[in-house]
């Protein structure tokens, strides 16, 4: 009898533990857990000072009521970053031809502030055909601010011992209120374009209603 009770109790405990640990069997990796959490509750970005490819400093406030699609890279990266940037380019090209082009700007943020000087960022911008206005390359010169930003975004950067870094890649959508509202897969630009068009159109229509 007691044995049966114990079996039932352990089953309940085990189920509860796994249910809790996976947000109801939806998130088995920390990346999906992060995305779910953001989707349910957008997070406010920490105040950081960014420096773009022209050496101009700016912060989130300077985004002039635009949404921002950001990603994290470093320019010497040879494995995942080129794919990320090429896909960002695809999204950039698609949005430029859409009616919402003025509502969204693009930002590639380097976490290698040491090596990615404005000159390197400028070179990188040319390489991917970024215009430097709608799509900017930037670094966060202050190490502590950079760490705070990476932590908040859920980006983990590990030096690989050969001068490079291993890091998780994604696209991060920031709204006008300086909140992180979505995290997208970096390897599915079509889905990102569709979702962006949907979100931006929704925003545009809500504005019309307000007027």
């Amino acid at each position, binding site marked *: 009898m*007691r*044995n049966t*009770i*114990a*079996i039932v*109790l*352990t*089953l309940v*405990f*085990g*189920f509860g*533990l*796994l249910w809790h*640990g*996976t947000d109801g069997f939806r*998130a*088995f*990796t*920390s*990346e*999906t*857990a992060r995305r779910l959490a953001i989707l349910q509750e957008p997070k406010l970005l920490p105040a950081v000072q960014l420096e773009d490819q022209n050496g101009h400093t700016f912060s989130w406030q300077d985004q002039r009521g635009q949404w921002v699609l950001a990603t994290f890279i470093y320019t010497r990266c040879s494995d995942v970053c080129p794919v990320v940037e090429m896909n960002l380019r695809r999204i950039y090209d698609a949005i430029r031809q859409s009616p919402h082009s003025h509502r969204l700007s693009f930002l590639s943020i380097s976490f290698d502030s040491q090596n990615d000087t404005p000159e390197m960022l400028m070179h990188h911008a040319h390489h991917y055909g970024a215009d430097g206005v709608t799509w900017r390359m930037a670094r966060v010169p202050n190490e502590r601010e950079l760490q705070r930003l990476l932590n908040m975004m*859920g980006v*983990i950067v*590990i030096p*690989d011992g050969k001068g490079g870094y*291993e890091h*998780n890649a994604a696209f991060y959508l920031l709204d006008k209120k300086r909140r992180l509202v979505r995290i997208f897969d970096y390897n599915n630009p079509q889905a990102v374009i569709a979702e962006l068009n949907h979100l931006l159109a929704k925003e545009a229509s809500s504005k019309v209603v307000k007027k």
Partner: protein
Amino acid sequence: MSGKRYAVGGAFFMAILVLPPVLRWMESSMIGVMLGQIPVLVVAGWLFGFALPRRFIEWLNCWNENGLPGLLLAISVLTFWLLPRSVDASLNEPLLRLAKWMMLPLLVGMPLSLSWKRLHPIARGIVHTNAISMLVVMGWLYLSVPVRVCNSYLLSQQNALGRMMIALAIVLAAFWSLRLFVATTPNEPTTR
């Protein structure tokens, strides 16, 4: 006396794991954590199980007559700590790291050592075969999934872990099936 020796043995294993160079070395690779640290923590708990006072074991046995409660507890807690999400969390959050280091010995290793002898041979066989098939399935997943499941580890490490798991599954399968032919059924191993 001998119970104390087991406790010292378990503590010794955990002390080695916690040494900064060992800790850093093991946590620097996914294989180190999944096939090094986690199993050793479980083994440490297994040894602690022999060191418990007899009266406490007798009390536990009332609740764990056929060993199934202990086995189920161990499996669910182990599964939890094998989730990629928990692996990441235990590396990045000190509180969860502490939880992992307490739970793996006390809620996986110890219940296993208290339950294993009590389990029906068929239940033990199921555990054996499931361990092998789960290793193959997880190894195959780690080899074929193109995304990193742990933010803390590289894709190449994930693939290496996958290969290692499949290799381990083959070794275990060979070992268990050989034992079937070489040794007599290990129901009463103490009679020799």
